[in-house]
């Protein structure tokens, strides 16, 4: 048996889904589309049944790709649990009526039920059951209230005899249902609602956005740095360094295995950034330099998502984003890109047109440094003075704007207008925030750490065989002539294709001037995506677009690097 969870977006469908199913969930793409859905399993009596979290839809007359998928999935299910937002019954009932007209049993979960009381909404449940002809269970997915009753009533899902209506007839029916079951008492705005309104007004919204983004930035830095100074640095310096020194002695302090595993020991101490061995830098970079910022960034991003702030930011940014050939929603992949470019490129799926996806993905790959790279920028460039970090970020921001304006002119087509629902502010439950944070951090650990270790290993081997020297000599005119970097920096740029954080780490022992470090960081950020981003870009947007985008990246990086070299 297959149970479909269907409902409008922002009704808590996914929270109900995670309440119903166990830990084993599968996220897959609907064949032939970029729309993804989640699949899980639950025990129903003796039977194990499949549960599908169908993409949110307002109607069964599709208005976008996600809704087309929802409609197609409807034909594959046996029972529908229609999740309805109890505080917005009228609009939600449109989908409910459409579902009842279909040939599939339905049970309604009237979610966000606790909010109806705060909002002065009274719903006559018995009357609603009678009028719809199906079971209606009030639920509060966040606390789990009503979920047990919902499960007990799944087998009572019924197939009432509902006539097929036209759109206007449906709205008329809904009007009469609402008149009979819902009674709203007038009530003043709560402070939360005042805040909601203020968030989308130009002046107050701008102030709120600046405050939110600035606090987000400081919280990320504070959490990240605290984790580094109080957790990871002590662990590495006091526990791991002695182990490595003993191992170094055991290996004789030099030689092939020693250099690969531990790297160079200077002055009887392990320099975790510069030694470049598998067990020294190979572990220190991902765990002690990057992971703390990954955790901090995804904690803050998850909160912003679950509170419901991001759609408001999309509204505020829409005007700017349109100049760059995008609409406001593209701010979401852009913000995600500050964590990792891979999910950012995946998130461009929320943009409808191919053109927008190309522009958004290209801009993210070029001008949005991921958390790993940023951690290294702060760690290395920051040592030379805060102003240099500002130059790096300022340059990338200017590139983002200018390149966006150019792409908007050059790439054919137009960007559709914004049309989005803005969900109310909600205090997110800690359970879901922590769960999401864990899934994202885990994703970083399993995907990035092996690549970092492999990168360090490959670099050491190539280095020993003198491959880098050959490449360095070959590209020297560009790197030294145009960018003003020493020949050895080529090695770092080549490694940048694998991992940018590792690559920036390789600039550390080169004794660069602050200016060279700035040029190096900017070029490294821009000239090519890391291997993981490259693969996702290729898969999502195709070979042709990837080649075009790569052309843009390399030229933009060389031009920007050259200019910086001249003016700094």
């Amino acid at each position, binding site marked *: 048996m297959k149970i479909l969870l269907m409902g409008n977006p922002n009704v808590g469908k996914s929270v109900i889904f995670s309440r119903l199913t166990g830990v084993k969930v599968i996220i897959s793409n609907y064949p032939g589309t970029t729309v993804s859905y989640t699949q899980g399993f639950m025990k129903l009596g003796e039977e194990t049944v499949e549960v599908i979290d169908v993409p949110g839809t*307002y*109607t069964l*007359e599709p*208005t*976008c790709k996600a809704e087309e998928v929802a409609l197609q999935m409807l034909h594959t299910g046996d029972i529908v649990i229609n999740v309805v937002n109890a*505080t*917005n019954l*009228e*609009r939600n009932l*449109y989908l409910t009526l459409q579902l009842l007209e279909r040939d599939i049993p339905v049970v309604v979960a009237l979610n966000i039920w606790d909010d109806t009381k705060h*909002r002065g909404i009274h719903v006559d449940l018995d009357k609603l059951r009678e009028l719809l002809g199906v079971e209606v269970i009030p639920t509060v997915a966040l606390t789990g209230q009503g979920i047990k009753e919902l499960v007990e009533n799944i087998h009572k899902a019924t197939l009432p005899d509902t006539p097929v209506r036209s*759109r206007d007839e449906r*709205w008329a029916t809904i009007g009469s249902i609402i008149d009979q079951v819902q009674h709203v008492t007038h009530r003043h705005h709560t402070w939360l609602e005042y805040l*909601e*309104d203020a968030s*989308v*007004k*130009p002046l107050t*919204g701008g102030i709120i956005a600046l405050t939110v983004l600035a606090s987000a930035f400081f919280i990320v830095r504070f959490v990240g740095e605290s984790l580094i100074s109080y957790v990871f640095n002590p662990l590495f310096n006091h526990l791991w360094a002695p182990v490595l020194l003993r191992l170094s002695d055991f290996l004789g302090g030099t030689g092939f295995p020693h250099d690969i595993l531990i790297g160079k020991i200077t002055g009887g101490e392990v320099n975790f950034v510069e030694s470049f061995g598998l067990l020294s830098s190979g572990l220190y970079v991902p765990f002690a330099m990057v992971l703390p910022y990954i955790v901090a960034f995804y904690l803050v991003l998850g909160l912003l998502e679950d509170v419901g702030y991001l*759609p408001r930011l*999309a*509204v*505020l940014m*829409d*005007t700017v984003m349109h100049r760059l050939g995008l*609409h*406001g929603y593209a701010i979401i992949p852009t913000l995600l890109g500050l964590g990792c470019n891979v999910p950012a490129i995946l998130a461009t799926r929320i943009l409808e047109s191919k053109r927008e996806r190309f522009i958004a993905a290209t801009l993210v790959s070029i001008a949005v440094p991921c958390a790993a790279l940023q951690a290294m920028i702060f760690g290395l460039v920051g040592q030379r003075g805060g102003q240099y970090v500002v130059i790096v970020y300022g340059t990338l921001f200017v590139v983002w704007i200018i390149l966006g304006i150019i792409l908007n002119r050059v790439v054919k087509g137009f960007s*559709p*207008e*914004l*049309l*989005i*629902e*803005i*969900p*109310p502010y909600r205090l997110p439950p800690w359970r879901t925030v922590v769960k999401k944070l864990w899934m994202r951090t885990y994703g970083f650990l399993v995907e990035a750490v092996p690549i970092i270790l492999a990168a360090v290993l490959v670099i050491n081997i190539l280095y020993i065989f003198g491959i880098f020297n050959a490449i360095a000599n070959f590209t020297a005119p560009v790197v030294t002539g145009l960018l003003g970097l020493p020949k050895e920096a080529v090695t770092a740029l080549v490694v940048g294709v694998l991992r940018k954080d590792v690559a920036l780490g390789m600039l550390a022992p080169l004794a660069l001037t602050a200016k060279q470090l700035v040029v190096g960081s900017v070029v490294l950020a821009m000239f090519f995506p890391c291997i993981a981003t490259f693969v996702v870009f290729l898969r999502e947007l195709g070979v042709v677009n990837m080649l075009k985008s790569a052309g843009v990246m390399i030229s933009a990086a060389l031009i920007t690097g050259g200019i910086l070299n001249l003016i700094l």
Partner: protein
Amino acid sequence: MSDGNQITLARMQTGQSGKVVQIQGGGGLVNRLNALGIRPSKRVTKVSSMFMRGPVTIQVDRTQVAVGLGMAKKIIVELA
């Protein structure tokens, strides 16, 4: 039916409210707006508009919807 009280959503003042009387667009637009609860006879309140031709935010029932300016020009509202 044409009285002076009818203006487009784009030209409404922030804080003003009225009833949607018409959506001057193709079936696609009508469908998409309908799905978000914006349809003739529905009461809407303008919450904000962004400068430089940015989107308009309106309150419909208990949700807010942001609508691009081009679409907002096609939604005719009777002030009341």
